[in-house]
C-alpha cells in the first residue's frame, strides 16, 4: 500500500507517533491512524493553501477589488459530495479493524483483570497457568515521586508483579473493578478496556514479539489514578511454563494456615507490608492520613476502639467514601495482620493481637 514504507520512515522517531505496535491489530491501528493523518493533512494543506493564497493576493493593500459573488450551486454540491466519498474510503478500513478488534473468540488463555483503587488484580482463569492469582502494585519508591531521590528509567511505569503471558497466544482479558471505573491500557498491545464495577467486559491481544510492555490506568479513578501502571511481560512458551511452575509453587508455600495463632512480633511486620501495599496511599505510612478525605489512623477512635468495629470497616468499607471493602482482596491472615499492625503502631499501643480466626468469625456473621 506504500503506507508501510512510509510508516517505516515515521517510526524512526517514535516520539511523534503512536508507540511501536507489538500485535497485528496494533499495526492495523497504527497504519489506520497514519493514513487518516496523511489524508487530513493533505486536505488541510489544500484548503488553507487556497485561503493563504487569498490572504496574500486578495488583499486591499495590494489594491484588490472585491468580487460580488456569494453562491454557486455547482461548487456547493461538489464540496458536499466529494467529502462523502473520502469518508467512505476511510470508513472501509476502519470497519474492518473494529471487527477484528472485537473478536474475542477462541482464546488460548483467559485472564481476569480487576481494578482496585489503586492497583490491578490478575486472575488466570483458563489455559496454562490457570489458578494463578496476584496483585500488581506500583513499585516506584515514594521518595522519587517527592523528588527526594533521582527518578529511575521506568519511573511510574514499573510494578512489583508483572502480568506474564506467552508470545503468539491469544490472550483474552476480562475486565471488572472493585470500586470505581478504571481502564486497563497497554498502548503497544493496542488494548484499552474500561473496568466497570459490577460488570465484566472483554478484550484481547496476541503479542507477536517478546518484551516488556508498559501502560497505565486510563480512566480517572481518584487520587492515585496516575500511579497505577500496567506492565505486561511477554515471554517464550518455555519461559512461560517455568514462570507458571514457579508462581504456583510460591503461591502454595505462601498460603497461610487460617487456624494458626500468631504472636504480636510475628504478625506486626506482616501487617506493615500489607499496610504499605494497601493502605498507605490514603492513610499514609506515618498513619496521619490526609484529612479530611482520608482520616488518620494514628490515635483514631476506630483503631483504638472495639476490635469488631474495625474489622467490620475493613470487611465492608465505608459506602460513600473512598474506604473500600477489603473482603475479597485480603485473606484472613492479611486482614488480621494489618489490623494488628495499626493497633500497635505510631502512638497506638493496644498490645492486642487479632487472629485470623477472629476475621473468619466476623466474615461468618
Amino acid at each position, binding site marked *: 500500500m506504500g503506507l508501510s514504507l512510509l510508516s517505516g520512515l515515521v517510526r524512526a522517531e*517514535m516520539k511523534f507517533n*503512536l508507540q511501536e505496535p507489538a500485535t497485528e491489530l496494533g499495526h492495523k491501528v497504527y497504519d*489506520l*491512524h497514519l493514513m*487518516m493523518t496523511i489524508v*487530513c493533512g493533505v*486536505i*488541510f494543506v489544500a*484548503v*488553507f493553501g487556497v*485561503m493563504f493564497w*487569498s*490572504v496574500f493576493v*486578495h488583499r*486591499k493593500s495590494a489594491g484588490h477589488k*472585491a*468580487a460580488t459573488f*456569494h*453562491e454557486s450551486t455547482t461548487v*456547493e454540491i461538489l464540496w*458536499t459530495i466529494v*467529502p*462523502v466519498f473520502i*469518508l467512505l474510503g476511510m*470508513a472501509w478500513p*476502519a*470497519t474492518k*479493524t473494529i*471487527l477484528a*478488534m*472485537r473478536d474475542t473468540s477462541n482464546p488460548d488463555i483467559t485472564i481476569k483483570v480487576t481494578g482496585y483503587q489503586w492497583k490491578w488484580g490478575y486472575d488466570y482463569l483458563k489455559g496454562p497457568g490457570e489458578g494463578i492469582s496476584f496483585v500488581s502494585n506500583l513499585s516506584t519508591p515514594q521518595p522519587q*515521586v517527592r*523528588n527526594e531521590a533521582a*527518578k529511575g*528509567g521506568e*519511573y*511510574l*511505569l514499573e510494578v512489583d508483579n508483572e502480568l506474564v503471558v506467552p508470545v503468539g497466544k491469544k490472550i483474552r482479558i476480562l475486565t471488572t473493578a472493585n470500586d*470505581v*471505573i478504571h*481502564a486497563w*491500557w497497554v*498502548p503497544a498491545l493496542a488494548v*484499552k478496556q*474500561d473496568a*466497570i*464495577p*459490577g*460488570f465484566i*467486559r472483554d478484550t484481547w491481544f496476541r503479542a507477536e514479539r517478546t518484551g516488556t510492555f*508498559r501502560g497505565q*490506568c*486510563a*480512566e*480517572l479513578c481518584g487520587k492515585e*489514578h*496516575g*500511579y497505577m501502571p500496567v506492565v505486561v511481560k511477554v515471554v517464550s512458551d518455555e519461559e512461560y511454563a517455568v514462570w507458571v511452575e514457579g508462581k504456583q509453587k510460591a503461591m502454595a508455600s505462601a498460603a497461610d494456615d487460617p487456624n494458626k495463632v500468631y504472636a504480636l512480633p510475628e504478625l506486626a511486620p506482616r501487617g506493615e507490608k500489607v499496610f504499605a501495599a494497601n493502605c498507605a496511599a490514603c492513610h499514609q505510612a506515618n498513619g496521619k492520613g*490526609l484529612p479530611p*478525605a482520608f482520616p488518620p489512623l494514628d490515635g483514631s477512635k476506630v483503631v483504638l476502639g472495639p476490635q469488631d468495629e474495625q474489622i467490620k470497616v475493613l470487611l465492608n468499607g465505608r459506602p460513600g467514601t473512598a474506604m473500600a471493602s477489603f473482603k475479597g482482596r485480603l485473606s484472613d491472615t492479611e486482614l488480621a495482620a494489618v489490623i494488628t499492625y495499626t493497633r500497635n503502631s505510631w502512638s497506638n499501643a493496644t498490645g492486642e493481637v487479632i487472629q485470623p480466626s477472629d476475621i473468619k468469625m466476623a466474615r461468618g456473621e
Partner: protein
Amino acid sequence: MAAIPGGADHAHDHAHDQPSGIMRWVTTTNHKDIGSMYLWFSFAMFIVGGIMALVIRAELFQPGLQVVDPDRFNQMTTLHGLIMVFGAIMPAFVGFANWMIPLMIGASDMAFARMNNWSFWLLPPAAILLSTSLLVPGGAAASGWTLYPPLTVQMGMGMDMAIFAVHILGISSIMGSINIVTTILNMRAPGMTLMKMPLFCWTWLITAYLVIAVMPVLAGAVTMILTDRHFGTSFFNAAGGGDPVLYQHIFWFFGHPEVYIIAIPAFGVVSQVIPAFSRKPLFGYASMVYATSSIAILSFIVWAHHMYTVGMPVAGQLYFMFATMLIAIPTGVKVFNWVATMWRGSLTFETPMLFSIGFLFLFTLGGFSGLVLSMTAVDVQLHDTYYVVAHFHYVMVAGALFSAYAGAYYWLPKWTGHMYDEKLGKLHFWLSIVFFNMTFFVQHFLGLAGMPRRIPDYALQFAEFNMISSIGAFGFGLSQLVFLVVALKCIRGGAKASAKPWDGAEGLEWTVPSPAPHHTFETPPVIK
C-alpha cells in the same frame, strides 16, 4: 411603546429613571447592560478557570509532585473544566446574544426583560458555590468535569456544591435560551424574514434549541448522582441493580450537543466578521443555515463516540463511528464557505479578522483531529489521553475563545463608542496564537506516545513536551491580560468610533450611533 414618536427623547427621559450605582446593575432589565454583565462575568470566570489551568500546568512542568497533591490536582482539572464550559464560554456567548441580537434584528430589547435580569443574576451564586467548594472539608469535586460515578459517590460535600451549581447554571442557560428563541421568532423588524437574518442570529436560534433540549438532561443526570449519594438510590450502582455506564450515556447525550452549544455561536460570530473584512457578502448563506442545522441535529445521535472503551456491542461502535464521521460533511461545508467568502475579496487584517482567520485555521485542525478520533479503533488508543485534551482545546479555545475575541474586537467600538488600540489588539492575537499552539500542539504527541489525561505526574519520556506545553500555557495565560488592557483602554477613551467603523460591515447594528444608546429601535426599522 415602540409606536411613540420621538424615540430618542423618550430614551433620554428613561435614563433618569434608572437607579444609580450598584442598584442600576442589580435591577437592570436593559439588554445592553445585561449583555455587558454577562461579558464581564465570563471574563472574570475565564481568569479564574485560567489560573486553575496554570496550577495544572505548573504541576506538570516536571515529573514528580511539586505544586499540589494529587487530590488537589484532580479538583483543579474538574473545576477548570466546569468553570470554563459553564462559567466562561457559555455566558460569553449569551452576552454577545444579549447585546447584539436585538440590535441585529431591530428589536427594542429582549422579549423577557425581567427574566433576562434573573438569568444573569443566577450566575454569580453558582460561581461562588463552585469556587468556594475548594475550601470545604474534602475539597472540591475531583472527578473530572464529566462527573462519572461511582467516583462521584466517594466525594465530600464539594461534590454536592458542584451539583447544585450545575443546576443553577442550567436553569440560567435555559431561561436565557427561551428568551433568545422568543426574541428572534417574535421581535424581528418588519420585513426581516428568517432567511434575511444575520447568520449570528441563526446560529443562536439553533443553539438555544439545543440548550433547551439538553440542559434538563444534564440536570437529571446530576440529580441522580445526588440521590445515589444521599438518598440510597442505585441508579449508577451495580450492587443495587444500577449501571455506572448508564450515567455516561445520559451525560454524553447532553455532552455532545453541549460541544455545539459552544461552537455554533462561535460559527455565527465568525460568519459576521469574515464578510466584513473581506468586503464581500457571506458565501452560501442558505447552505450555512442548513449546515448549522444539520450539525445540531447530528449532535444528538453521536454521543457514544465518547465511550468507545466502555464495551459497547460492536454494532453500536460501528453506528456511532459512521454517524460521527457524517458531521465532517456540514462542518466542511462551513469551512469551505468561509474560505470562499475570502476568495477574491478585498481583505484587510484588523484584529477581529486576525482572530477569525486564527479560528478558521485552528478550528479546522481540531476538526481533523476529531475525525481521527471518530475512528473507533484509533480512538481506543487515544481515548483518555492528551491527544483528546489537545483535540478539544483546539475546538474550544481556538474555536470558541478565538471567535469570542473576534466578536469582542469587532463590536467593541459599538459598545464603547471608541476604537480599541489596534496595535495592542494585534499583539494580543499573535501572542495568543503562538502560545496556544505551543501549549496544545505538542499534546498531540504526548497522547500518541501514551500519556493518559488527568494525571498529576508522568513517566520520564513525556518530560520534554510537558515542559514546552507548560511554558506555552503560562505565555498564553499572561497574553490574555493584554485583552483586559485593550478593553479597559477602549472603555475609558480612544479615537471616536463612527456608527459604522468597519467599511465592509453589514447589518442593523451599524445603523445606530456608537456607543449604542441605552434604548434603540423603539420604532422598528423597516427592511426592504
